């Protein structure tokens, strides 16, 4: 019979425990989770990349709603438990929701310590613990100013880096003489401090906060020595305290944390404690690896096994882009300890091993951390290193004669060597899963083994293992590089442009280590688009990185002449416009005039030299460029709608014109064609466009992701809205989402297939705040983009484009 398992807390530890439990004993329990946070389980160690903007919340979700549904778990979101009644085996939340249990797991985690200095209750004093904290930080960061981070430990420094990335000035206040003193020795701390200084983060050590200043919100802090540092935000990152109040109130044995034995059992045999709230053999852990190890033990127990958690040796890595840091064990100096140190100041490398009785007891690596897991493995196993002591510090590749290549080093690792520290996955587990389940991609390996699925630092090792196991069948280019100039894919490049604040093509090529001096015809236009899109106000468009059509604002034809297509808003024109076109055709003897599929007129066969004069004449009649050449907004096709048509339900022509006037000039990853049909008879053929609207009596049905070119594909429905204003807002937001995520030359239907229709609907239809954000960013970008390129050139811009350098007859060539 199914027992009832109740879990208080929905963090990473119980999440992992459930995964193991469902694998070991599927269906054994009827599971209910009380979650004080109003959301699903996410990867808390990845909050720092979310804060720095290198990842989004969606990237760090571990279990989505579907997972809970699939496993039959009842997840009560926003339910903060206030009482455990051991007598009647019942758990009750503040909002009255309750559940009875046969087995109870307390996983209440920890609470950040807030130092009770005067002013600690002011608005703007934050902890760094969950997504709500990150959201509040981002909110304040948007206004700029200075953030003061109290605590120069791992968490504090990651917060400082993230806030700096968000554009704030940052000062870190640290009580001890060196930062991260629990994990780093003074030389490594010095190197780290210098690297952070270089990133513009001020660090004040030996500083104690006396008071937080301000009347109702933070205005600064005062230090013991009287110094005052003004600032808009104070982040306290001074430590955590196990959250054991509930357990104490229920009469369970509590020390610093909730006391558990090796089976993770509390003083009540039916109640277990897991995660940061638990105290095992006198130790409360705060890192993910030991919590996952204990989660495994608990899952085994709940499945009827007898696993014993033996405690963990831990290691630390700092998640600051560009800084490699690894630390494990104990590195204090003592008479019975020896050390091996390697320094290369110019290369920024520092390595220190602390030995006791010929065994590694501590490791600090800065700059080059490749051997971290090898040293850690030797340390955990207590291996005798006396035979390789001379070359130990150089790492695994230098053991046993000739230097090994990295692949051989991985091949030489024993099966029980730990590859993924976060998830405690060893080499044997990875290789056997790859062969057992026939895995061929990194994502599959992550899904099945969890290796490199948390902080991602061991991704390189996992890839090497895949290569070893699969040989040629492993194609690491599951991420296709942008071009031969780089190994990075489009998505990585886009992410890094933002994360590293890269604002010119040379900066991208330098920072992302381009293999060519100035790129190629594939990557340069892509980079130019990404920079235009991401930094609309700051980036200076690089015309030499644009394809000829976008450089001269006309379409090149097979004979080297150009075609010219002026905008006809919504496909509507007039006698005077047509007369102006006719005059241009006569004056420049345009060989062909053709009506396009997008409801406008194409003038073909124009000489490049004539383009500015053609544009000048068209401009006088009020025409602007139709951008028929652009990876950007092209046409908005319409039907006559309710103004004329007896079937029309809305004024589709007016909406089309409004959309075109709002969106013209915007650059997009690939061309973008719209259409608005006034009724479901769909005369404007909106259901094969990139974005289409079908007007109905009750409003506007928004479609997207159609194609009618190399591929034929009907659109998908985004959703329905009631008013024209809403239709505009949704379409613009969708366009901006595509602009920000699409890969260069990737049409909207391919992008939609890649990111998922549901995800797009969720962000654009259901999440008003996200939608507004996209909309606002589009509008901001348009203030720089809506400049008619034709009139610019008529006024003399890029004059050199349209004239030969010189015209020479041979007679002049006398010298």
């Amino acid at each position, binding site marked *: 019979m199914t027992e009832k398992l109740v879990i208080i807390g929905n963090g990473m530890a119980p999440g992992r425990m459930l995964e193991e439990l469902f694998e070991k004993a599927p269906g054994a329990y009827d599971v209910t989770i009380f979650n004080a946070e109003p959301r699903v389980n996410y990867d808390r160690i990845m909050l720092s990349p979310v804060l720095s903007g290198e990842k989004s919340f969606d990237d760090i979700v571990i279990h989505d709603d579907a997972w809970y549904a699939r496993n039959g778990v009842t997840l009560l979101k926003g339910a903060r438990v206030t009482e455990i009644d051991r007598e009647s085996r019942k758990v009750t939340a503040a909002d009255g929701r309750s559940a009875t249990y046969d087995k109870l797991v307390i996983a209440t985690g920890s609470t950040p310590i807030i130092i009770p200095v005067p002013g600690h209750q002011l608005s703007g004093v934050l902890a760094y613990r969950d997504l709500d904290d990150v959201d509040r930080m981002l909110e304040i960061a948007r206004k700029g100013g200075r953030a003061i981070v109290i605590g120069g430990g791992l968490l504090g420094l990651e917060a400082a880096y993230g806030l700096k990335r968000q554009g704030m000035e940052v000062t870190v206040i640290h009580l001890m003489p060196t930062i991260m003193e629990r994990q780093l020795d003074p030389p490594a701390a010095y190197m780290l401090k210098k690297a952070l200084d270089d990133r513009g983060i001020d660090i004040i050590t030996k500083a104690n906060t006396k008071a937080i200043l301000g009347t109702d919100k933070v205005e600064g802090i005062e230090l013991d020595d009287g110094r005052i540092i003004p600032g808009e935000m104070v982040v306290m990152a001074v430590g955590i305290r196990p959250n054991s109040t509930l357990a104490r109130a229920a009469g369970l044995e509590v020390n610093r944390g909730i006391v558990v034995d090796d089976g993770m059992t509390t003083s009540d045999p039916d109640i277990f404690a897991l995660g940061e709230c638990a105290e095992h053999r006198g130790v409360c852990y705060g890192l993910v690896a030991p919590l996952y190890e204990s989660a495994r033990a608990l899952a085994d127990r709940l499945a009827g096994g007898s696993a014993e958690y033996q405690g963990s040796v831990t290691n630390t890595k700092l998640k600051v882009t560009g800084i490699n840091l690894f630390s494990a064990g104990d590195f204090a100096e003592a008479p019975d300890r020896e050390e091996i140190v390697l320094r290369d100041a110019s290369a920024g490398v520092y390595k220190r091993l602390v030995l006791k009785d010929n065994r590694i007891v501590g490791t600090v690596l800065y700059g080059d951390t490749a051997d971290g897991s090898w040293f850690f493995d030797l340390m955990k196993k207590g291996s005798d290193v006396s035979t390789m002591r001379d070359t130990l510090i150089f790492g695994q590749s230098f053991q046993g004669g000739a230097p090994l290549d990295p692949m051989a080093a991985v091949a030489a690792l024993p099966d029980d060597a730990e590859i993924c520290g976060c998830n405690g996955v060893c080499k044997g587990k990875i290789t056997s899963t790859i062969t057992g389940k026939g895995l061929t991609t990194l994502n599959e390996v992550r899904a099945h083994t969890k290796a490199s699925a948390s902080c991602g630092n061991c991704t390189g090792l996992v890839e090497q293992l895949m290569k070893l196991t699969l040989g040629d069948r492993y194609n690491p280019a599951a991420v296709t590089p942008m071009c031969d100039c780089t190994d990075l894919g489009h998505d990585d490049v886009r992410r890094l442009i933002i994360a590293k604040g890269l604002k010119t093509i040379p900066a991208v090529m330098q920072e992302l280590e381009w293999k060519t*001096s100035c790129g*190629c015809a594939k990557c340069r236009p892509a980079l130019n688009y990404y920079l235009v899109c991401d930094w609309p106000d700051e980036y200076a468009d690089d015309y030499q990185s644009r394809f000829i059509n976008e*450089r001269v604002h006309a379409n090149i034809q097979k*004979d080297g002449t150009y075609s010219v297509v002026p905008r006809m808003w919504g496909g509507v024109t007039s006698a005077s416009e047509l007369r102006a076109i006719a005059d241009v055709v006569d004056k420049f003897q345009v060989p062909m005039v053709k009506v396009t599929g997008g409801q406008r007129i194409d003038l073909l066969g124009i000489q490049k030299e004539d383009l500015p004069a053609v544009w000048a004449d068209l401009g006088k009649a009020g025409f602007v460029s139709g951008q028929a050449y652009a990876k950007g907004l092209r046409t908005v096709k319409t039907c006559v709608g309710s103004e004329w048509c007896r079937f029309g339900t809305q004024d589709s022509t007016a909406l089309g014109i409004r959309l075109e006037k709002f969106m013209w000039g915007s650059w997009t990853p690939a061309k973008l064609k719209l259409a608005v049909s006034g009724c479901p008879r769909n005369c404007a053929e909106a259901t094969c466009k990139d974005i289409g609207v079908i007007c109905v009596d009750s409003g506007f049905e928004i479609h997207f992701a159609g194609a009618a070119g190399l591929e034929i594909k009907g659109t998908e429905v985004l959703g329905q809205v009631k008013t024209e204003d809403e239709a505009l807002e949704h379409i613009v937001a969708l366009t901006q989402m595509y602009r920000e995520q699409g890969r260069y030359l990737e049409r909207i239907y391919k992008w939609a297939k890649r990111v998922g229709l549901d995800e797009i609907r969720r962000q654009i239809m259901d999440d008003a705040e996200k939608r507004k954000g996209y909309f606002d960013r589009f509008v901001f970008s348009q203030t720089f983009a809506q400049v008619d390129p034709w009139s610019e050139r008529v006024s003399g811009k890029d004059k050199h484009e349209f004239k030969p350098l*010189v015209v020479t007859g041979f007679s002049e060539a006398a010298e």
Partner: protein
Amino acid sequence: MTWVTIGRLEDIPVRGARCVDTPEGRIAVFRTADNQVFAMEDSCPHKRGPLSQGIVHGTSVTCPLHNWVISLESGSAQGADVGQVRTMAVRNDNGTLLLDLAELRIAAE
């Protein structure tokens, strides 16, 4: 050698090209990121695309019509494509550019 002055280095955009019109056709003059100057017929060996309109990268240009990549140094098509563009000598005298039209002239006579 028949050197003809065609203009100044700064008349050509960096990583760009300008054209010189001659009785024997159009010559494309390229300027690379490191200010090297090259000249060749403005005509791709594939389908006669105007190379001067292509994207200049390193010492190559990509034809705007079908993306053939032509070496500015040798005039030959790169990668899997096979073809040859006639190149001309260009000289940079303290910023003044001179083009050698001797070959063209012989062709014209």
